[in-house]
């Protein structure tokens, strides 16, 4: 059996990649994907703990996260499309004003 720590280290690496991408990237879609990566990193640690402790609550929580992530993706992508339509750019540094 794969030890728990492996899962957790992988989860940490995924999360850190997400954070790094979030901080470094300028494209909104890439930032968005980085957020998904962070969420999934966390999800991985949840399921790993759930399997380790034989407790279902971790699995259940992951479902919740996935549902929220799906909803977020729907809303987020809609916003990104709206932003691109109005500003013709996806660079976050240029989208720093609420007013056009």
């Amino acid at each position, binding site marked *: 059996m794969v030890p728990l720590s492996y899962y957790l280290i992988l989860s940490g690496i995924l999360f850190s990649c997400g954070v790094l991408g979030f901080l*470094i990237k300028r494209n909104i879609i890439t930032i968005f994907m980085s957020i998904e990566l962070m969420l999934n990193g966390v999800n991985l640690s949840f399921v790993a703990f759930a399997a380790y402790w034989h407790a279902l609550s971790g699995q259940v929580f992951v479902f919740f996260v996935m549902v929220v992530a799906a909803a977020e993706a729907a809303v987020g992508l809609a916003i990104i499309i709206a932003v691109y339509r109005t500003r013709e750019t996806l660079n*976050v540094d240029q989208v720093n004003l609420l007013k056009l």
Partner: protein
Amino acid sequence: MTPSLHLWLIPILPIVGAAINGFMGRRLTREASASVALFFCGSAFAAALVVAARFSSLSLPHVEYLAHWIRAGSFQADFSFYLDQLSLVMLLVVTGVGFLIHVYAVGYMWDDPGFYRFFCYLNLFMFFMLTLVLASNYLLMFIGWEGVGLASYLLIGFWFTKDSAASAGKKAFIVNRIGDFGFLIALFLMIKHFGSLNFADVFHSVSGMGVEKAGAGLLTSIGLLLMVGAAGKSAQLPLYVWLPDAMEGPTPVSALIHAATMVTAGVYMVSRSHMIFERAPMALMLVAIIGTLTALFAATIGIAQTDIKKVLAYSTVSQLGYMFMACGVAAFSAAIFHLMTHAFFKGLLFLGAGSVIHALGGEQDMRRMGGLRREIPWTFWTMTFATIAIAGIPPFAGFFSKDEILWRASRVSLVYWGLGVFTAFLTSFYMFRLWFLTFFGEFRGADAAAVDAGHGSHGHDSHDHEDHGHGIHESPKIMLVPLMILAVLSLVGGWVGVPGSLGGSDRFDKFLGPVFHATIPATEAQGAIPEESTKGPEPEASHSQELLFTGVSVSAAGLGLFLAWLLYYRRPDLPLEIAHGLGRLYGAVANKYYVDELYAALFVTPLVDGSTRILWHGIDQNVIDAAVNDAADGARHVSDTVRHMQSGNLRSYAGWVAVGAAVIIGYMVWMGVR
């Protein structure tokens, strides 16, 4: 229990007048302001007369409880009033002389723009003075004590636009603070050891204590501290310096506050506390020494003054010294007797001087007066009465009271008596000097034009009168009538206390007897102080001796009169030669022995310098201000650094969040490892 006397009315009436004039005076006419002030002051006098009329039917001391004030544990001080022979005498003097001076002031202050303000303060003063006199505990007395100080400050600085008046007011207030500090400590000692400030309780506790023969015990300490307070209020050495400066106030104020009533509060307080002083011979001796030295010291200064009011001011200090001398030889009734006659003749002298100043349109320098007896005869004659009275020439009032003091002083020590008689000679000399300089010889003021110029520059004292062409004019009736009444009192006021040696029965002493002699344990008192009156009737031999002493003091007064006549009437050129001959001694006297300069060098300058350098530049600027400024500067520097976090860049915020999370996780991991 006797029916209520409504003693509370006596102090309350003047403050009602003060309130009316104070709050509404601006809208009242002069006539209305004056009648309000006179009505409330006069009705206080009337109420005092009613009390006096019913006095014989009272069981004394009569205490009238008015209201709760302070109740803390076993300590209590109430608003209640205390009436005995001593307070009755004070009550009548204060309201009576006070009323006369109110009347006079209506005429004197008529043209002053602050007319209503003046009477507001004057009534306020009456309220506090009557509270002081009637209080049944030391705390209420202290309220009155501070209150008269306040009224005195307000009235000395009445013409506050004049710099000298404003600073004279401050000087009086500050010097009085020094005395009040001693008084206050004495009160604390009483609370600590007697648990009460009520006269009855304190004196009851004290009466159980023996005479402190050696060293400084509790009673000696209290006595000395009370004397510090009295020296401040009553202008004794070394705290007398404020009184001559207080002459910056309007002349009726000088008469009322700085001659007749307020400055005698110290004498009243010492007499009231006679139980304490009688058991503290050290304190009593100090009172006598201070009194004697002050009397002599101030009299010598009085000789060389040229300002008419300054002469009277030093004379007041000197006469107050007599009163303390009397207190110091345990002749309290003689002190109160002199207090009363002094109120009459010194009040009159000040009012008369005011009338002279008024007549000359503000001139106060005696070198520019002279020959006024024909111009202002009424003022001249009333002033003459007062001058004879203060010089101690029989049968005027001052003779009886001063003689009583000197006689009692001679029973304790001939030194007191000798200095007292010499002071009496000086008193007679400087008073007749004033009299000759003012009323005799040629008028030395410049011509009418100069007098008119004086009119202009001393606008406050001026009074437009019909015969303006001449410049010098007699004062209006409203000012003369009080002068006349006081003149009569200066003549007859002493007759209530004619001593046994002159065929009288010394009724005044007998009247006050119950206050001062009631509770002295005779055996102890005789050990400490020769108590003449407790020994029963005096033997014949002592009568003739007393007459001899009287003769000496009267001839001293006569000598003073003769010398003044010689120097200032007969040979007016002599004083200048003598002054030149004496040189520096004369300079020292004329400059008041440089006491003000000495105090300035010893106390004021170090205090100002110390305050400036250490307290202001050192502590205030470098510590207190610096703490506040540095705190603000530090906050700004830190903020300046930290504000770079707030870049407005979204990803840098996310970065901070990540860093923060990492720090927290790192901390938790580290804690977990531990």
